[in-house]
């Protein structure tokens, strides 16, 4: 698995050139410099009104060069990988420091780890007709689901990202990262009511993944089922109540309520509502939350992060006690904490920062039925759209796209879209029951931070929160 050959052979990069660029980057001093080569090939197909209306392919290649001096970061990038342009970018990044030149560590040590995802096929184009088949099958399956389905949009998108990282501390890493996702969006109409439903999934997988159980028919049926269900939804309740979250994607709660607040950059700057809470109770004793970049084929997984560090499983909250942060090299060094391999970036044009990978709550012991039965009046939310958090105040939201009333322990009427809001360091203290049914999401999550998007995973078992505010109208 010699990914580095790609940049060496295709773009004439050599170890000698890497060393020269790192030397140039540290020519005005600085504590650390790194080079991040990236080449992404992407394909996307879109079906709408039962025909394939869009198909596109793209390639994007470049190199980002970073120089770190204390807490200062200089950054420059180029989409031209000639030695000339790379050295010029290195000199631009070097402007952040002002001191005598530093020497990079001599010789590189390669970061190696067993691969978590399939090696790419030699010729991706060969699969194009199979990819087209996926979106057409999704269309047929969604329309077959119910005569009230009026519109179907289905898309398939994949990318193959090759990276090579070389750093002045001797880090050398390369990886080839596949990522594929299919999405189905359905509109249903009954009389004058119109409703929408969507579904999708994927991961760091090849197209063969979609010929299994999680194929176009599965996602199409899910999207159609949700849209039909929403046709009969009643207004959502408003106010504080008991909330039961279903397994899987509702784990976006963890991502917003605690995950972002535990990213080390916010804690180094003490701008997070979680700053200084290590060792303190931030959740009910039933709650253990981890971030795990090493789950095979998962959307948020990485063999190495975007700084060339191995990824790992990191315990964030253990039995309700805050245990650790998610760090990149810069925050690990400045805070004197271990690097957790969470340094990520959207592309070569961006500076890496601490980001989540796959974030989930470990299973408890309760049966999901018992959890629902324990609720007198509340909301059962099983699917969500996106969420958002204000790191500093700790307030977070996430929007339910499929939810039901719970009345006297029974799941009753479906309700319309509603946003749930809570306070990160407090919300998980209200977790009173944790189910035995841990599930991860289907592989559709994208997380945004400071304008950078990266693929992530979330997961959770069925969980009951004794209190949460539901933003309905009734």
């Amino acid at each position: 698995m010699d990914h580095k050959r790609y940049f060496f052979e295709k773009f004439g990069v050599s170890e000698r050139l890497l060393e020269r660029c790192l030397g140039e980057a540290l020519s005005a001093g600085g504590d650390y410099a790194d080079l991040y080569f990236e080449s992404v090939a992407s394909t996307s197909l879109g079906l709408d009104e039962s025909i394939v209306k869009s198909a596109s392919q793209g390639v994007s290649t470049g190199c980002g060069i970073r120089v770190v001096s204390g807490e200062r970061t200089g950054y420059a990038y180029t989409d031209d990988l000639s030695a000339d342009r790379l050295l010029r970018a290195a000199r631009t990044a070097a402007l952040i420091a002002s001191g005598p030149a530093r020497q990079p560590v001599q010789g590189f040590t390669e970061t190696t780890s067993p691969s978590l995802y399939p090696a790419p096929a030699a010729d991706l184009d060969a699969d194009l007709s199979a990819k087209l088949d996926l979106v057409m099958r999704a269309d047929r399956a969604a329309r077959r689901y119910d005569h009230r389905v009026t519109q179907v949009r289905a898309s398939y998108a994949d990318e193959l990202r090759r990276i090579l990282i070389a750093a002045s501390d001797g880090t050398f890493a390369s990886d080839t990262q596949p990522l594929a996702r299919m999405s189905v969006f359905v509109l249903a109409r009954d009389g004058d009511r119109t409703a929408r439903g969507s579904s999708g999934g994927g991961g760091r997988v090849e197209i063969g993944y979609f010929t299994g159980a999680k194929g176009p028919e599965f996602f199409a049926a899910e999207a159609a089922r949700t849209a039909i269900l929403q046709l009969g939804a009643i207004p959502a309740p408003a106010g504080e109540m008991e909330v039961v979250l279903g397994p899987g994607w509702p784990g976006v709660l963890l991502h917003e309520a605690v995950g972002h607040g535990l990213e080390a950059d916010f804690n180094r700057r003490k701008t997070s509502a979680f700053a200084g809470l290590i060792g303190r109770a931030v959740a009910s004793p039933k709650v253990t939350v981890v971030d795990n970049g090493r789950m095979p084929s998962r959307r948020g997984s990485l063999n190495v992060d975007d700084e060339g560090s191995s990824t790992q499983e990191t315990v964030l909250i253990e039995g309700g006690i805050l245990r650790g942060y998610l760090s990149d090299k810069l925050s690990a060094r400045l805070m004197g904490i271990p690097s957790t391999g969470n340094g990520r970036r959207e592309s070569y044009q961006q500076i890496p920062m601490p980001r989540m990978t796959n974030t989930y709550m470990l299973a408890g012991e309760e049966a999901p039925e018992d959890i629902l039965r324990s609720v007198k009046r509340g909301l059962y939310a099983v699917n969500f759209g996106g969420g958002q958090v204000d790191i500093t105040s700790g307030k977070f939201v996430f929007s339910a796209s499929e939810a039901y009333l719970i009345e006297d322990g029974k799941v009753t009427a479906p309700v319309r879209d509603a946003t749930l809001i809570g306070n990160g360091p407090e919300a998980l203290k209200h977790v009173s029951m944790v189910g035995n049914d841990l599930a991860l999401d289907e592989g559709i999550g994208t997380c945004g931070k400071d304008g950078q998007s990266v693929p992530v995973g979330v997961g959770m078992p069925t969980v009951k929160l004794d209190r949460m505010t539901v933003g309905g109208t009734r």
Partner: protein
Amino acid sequence: MATTAETRTDLQSLASDIVIRALRAGASDAEVTIREGDEFSTTVRLGEVETLKESGSRGVGLRVLLQVDNGYRVASTSSSDFTPEGLEHLVRGAIALARLTSVDPFAGLPEPGEYGQLPGDLRLYHDDVYSLPTEERIAWARRAEAAAMAVDARLVNSDGAGFDAATGRRIFANSRGFLGEYRSSYCSIAASPIAQDASGEMQRDYWWSQARAFRDLDPPESVGQEAARRTLRLLGARRVPTQQAPVVFAPEVARGIVGAVFDAAAGDAIYRGASIFAGKLGESVAAPSVTVVDDGTMPGGFGTSPFDAEGLPSRRTVIVERGVLRSYILNTYAARKLGLKSTANAGRGLAGNPFLDSGNLFLEPGAQSADEIVRGVDRGLYVTRLMGHGVNLVTGDYSRGAAGLWIENGEFAFPVQEITIAGNVRDMLRNITAIGSDLEFRSATAAPTLCIDGMTIAGE
């Protein structure tokens, strides 16, 4: 329309050349977009430089159309590789991909008479955005942060302040003879201080100024002071009981309501029946005081361009006029689907089909000052921040996290947070009871202060 050969830049020649190559390779029609840009950004935190970034990049996108009996097959490719081999791959890839897509009877370029560009200097590019030396740009960010921190002792920390500048060039060429180019510039300054009270509770807000010319930026001190004022007023925020009450949207969040009007009027949502505005042309959709306009022609505007992404001259479109839905927002494709004419709202990335994009989008101002609107509210919420994406324009359902100030007897009483506001966009537009006079274009979408009755606030 097309510039003369003498004034063509190298990139214009390249774009035309790629169009010709695509036609030779078998395309019936082709569109080429080239984008080139430089960016600079610096962030300062607690007086120290935190990041300094400076770079440039470019990319090319090709969209080809293959005519088949009653329609076209279309596909597109994009690349950052401008070498002859890279461009050859771009062209051949697009043609090969197009052979696999479906025949779409509504696909196709605009009609011959539709192309054009706005004349004259639209004041989109000012090279003064790079006129400050790097040290001065850092100093501007420092001044903004220092001004914020100096306002009050409770401002104990900072999420930083930044100065950004960028310039870009966009070239568009197609096989019907359109060739256009424009440059644009942008710079901004922002500050985000953090306040903490005796209880240890922290709040953060921010303020910013952006402009196409450096000389039009607000002074860093005023940006910092405004950021401080906004942050301090949130300290001590609490929740309120669940209730129905009027909600006053400050301009920076009222923009979201205007954005929802645009999205609901978007032609692709209309032809799919995926919008609360579908089939409502000519009908009343909002209070009679509401007029919403999308104007891509305003000189110097953040949403201004001489032509849209299909080569049609930018224009002004009244979407809602005194409460009545007057126009959908259309590109060529959506217009053909609906039997209408494009409103020149095509946008596009390097690859992919044209989508719908706004110009300078705004709700026309009313006569009342924001103060007068607040004074007119007996008991209600003044929203300064919204969270989440809880707007469903298929059903109109609206539910978002909110923070701001509680109004009692026409005065701000205390800050509030961790609440939601909910309603239905259909009702919200009809229940706009007051429109402020404070319309200001701080970005491409702008709105004055709005008061909306009948929303549900969920809290304790």
